[in-house]
């Protein structure tokens, strides 16, 4: 099944929760070419997750325009699917039913749902768990079911909202590699949001660095690396170091390792205070 990845165009998009509150996102413009993998990195509160929700059609922008393959985004669609940090599987359904729920919403015949779900579970390495209860799976396995649930839709665009942040390093690394490989094989356009610079380098063809209050895209860095990207590959480490320098310059803080970035990103320290640090 050949996919033509989506072409995403974001034009002058701003977003505020309330008319009298400051903008969360300010005049964002962005183009994503079909089949390209893009990572958006920034601290928590920079609006990167909001931007993803806007592109997915789950939230409407306050101003500006978003179109996917020339069609204005007004609501969610089967052609662009989002994965969240929490897999949010339905505990009253088994693995197969969870993976196929989107196709059921789409009204596909049961035989086609069964076939597509079977293929997707095979692809994410859960073929042996088809009839398992989702509550019996590990966090990584649950996220793999969520990945299968997204892939059965045969989307043109996959949006990832830090879906691996809650997983252990080993599970995260294997999922990062798998998702990039699957998207590349199928030509799916990939847009992911993360605060993990390693993740951006391992998964994306380019990284966008965002600043907060209001959220703006401050820099774009291409990541041109060949085939399976391993964390301990010197070329990967070089790219991580380069992206980290860029990130620190924009965020204005000395982040020495992932842990401090992750910590500062999750403890919700305001951007202005970081500048003084």
């Amino acid at each position, binding site marked *: 099944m050949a996919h033509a990845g989506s072409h995403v165009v974001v034009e002058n998009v701003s977003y505020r929760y309330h008319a009298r509150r400051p903008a969360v996102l300010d005049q964002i413009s962005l183009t994503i070419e079909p089949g390209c993998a893009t990572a958006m990195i920034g601290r928590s509160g920079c609006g990167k997750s909001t931007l993803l929700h806007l592109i997915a059609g*789950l939230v409407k922008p306050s101003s500006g325009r978003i179109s996917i393959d020339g069609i204005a985004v007004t609501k969610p669609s089967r052609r662009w699917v989002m994965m969240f940090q929490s897999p949010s599987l339905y505990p009253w359904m088994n693995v197969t039913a969870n993976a196929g*729920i989107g196709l*059921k919403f789409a009204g596909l015949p049961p035989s086609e749902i069964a076939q597509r779900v079977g293929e997707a579970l095979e692809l994410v390495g859960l073929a042996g768990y088809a009839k398992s209860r989702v509550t019996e799976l590990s966090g990584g396995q649950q996220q793999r079911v969520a990945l299968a649930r997204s892939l059965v839709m045969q989307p043109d665009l996959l949006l990832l909202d830090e879906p691996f942040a809650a997983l252990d390093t080993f599970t995260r690394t294997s999922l990062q590699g798998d998702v990039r490989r699957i998207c590349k094989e199928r030509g799916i356009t990939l847009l992911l949001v993360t605060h993990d610079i390693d993740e951006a380098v391992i998964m994306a063809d380019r990284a966008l660095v965002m600043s907060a209050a209001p959220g703006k895209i401050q820099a774009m860095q291409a990541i041109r690396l060949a085939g399976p990207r391993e964390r301990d590959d010197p070329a990967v480490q070089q790219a991580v170091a380069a992206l980290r320098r860029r990130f620190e310059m924009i965020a204005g803080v000395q982040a020495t390792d992932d842990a401090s970035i992750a910590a500062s990103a999750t403890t919700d320290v305001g951007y202005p205070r970081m500048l003084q640090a």
Partner: protein
Amino acid sequence: MSARAATVDAAGEDRRRRPFFSSRFAFGLLGILILLGCWWVGGLVLLNSASGQAFAGFAPGPTFASFVKMLGNGAILHAALPSLGRIFGGLLVAILLGVPLGIALGRLPALQKITHVPFQFLRMISPLSWMPIAVLAFPSWNGAIVFLIAAAAIWPVTFATANGVAKLDPAWLKLARNLGASLPHRLAFVILPAIAQDMFTGIRLALGVAWIVLVPAEYLGVSSGLGYAINDARDSLDYAQLTAIVLVIGILGFSLDAICLFLIRRVSYHHHS
């Protein structure tokens, strides 16, 4: 690694479950025997007192004899069927009105706030107090009784449903929306399965209330059903028959509750492993 842990868990659970199950059965049997013993002693006291002899029919012996006789000649079925019909009619009305109302209350906090006082006020009025109005409003006594049962049953169904909807994980709904689910799809595949356990718990509570309301409601007007059969036995001084009907009420109520409990377990997805 998790597969192995699951096997160990399952084996451990098996070892624990076996004695627990048999002891539960033994305790249940003991409870029934104690109840029968009290009843039997009460019967003996009646039999041996000067003023109580006329009521000796209340004792277990005559009651069971009458029970078997009434089971044989179809009197029990004849009394129980109209009552069961009214219960199901009333519950059906309560579910058809209460579940949508509960879902609306759970999804719309403003509606919940507006209706809080009126609903709590109405809930505390004994359904039987509506009896005179019900009799005026409905052409048949049967309709009036079904209304009273529905009036008793609607509150537990509504509140339990609303409670289930209110604690629904918002991520489940966002996810369904993200996968392009329409509103009917979200209702059928997400909301209803997610709240099924709360809904059936509400129906179980409603059934308990309805079953209690049923008998006094049938004391009035109608000439069929378990309540009528009790009154009829009292008027003909057949106390063994009266107690046999009480026994039927207890057994049927217990069975209906057991069915509800079974349904609750069936739809429950909270499995403690």
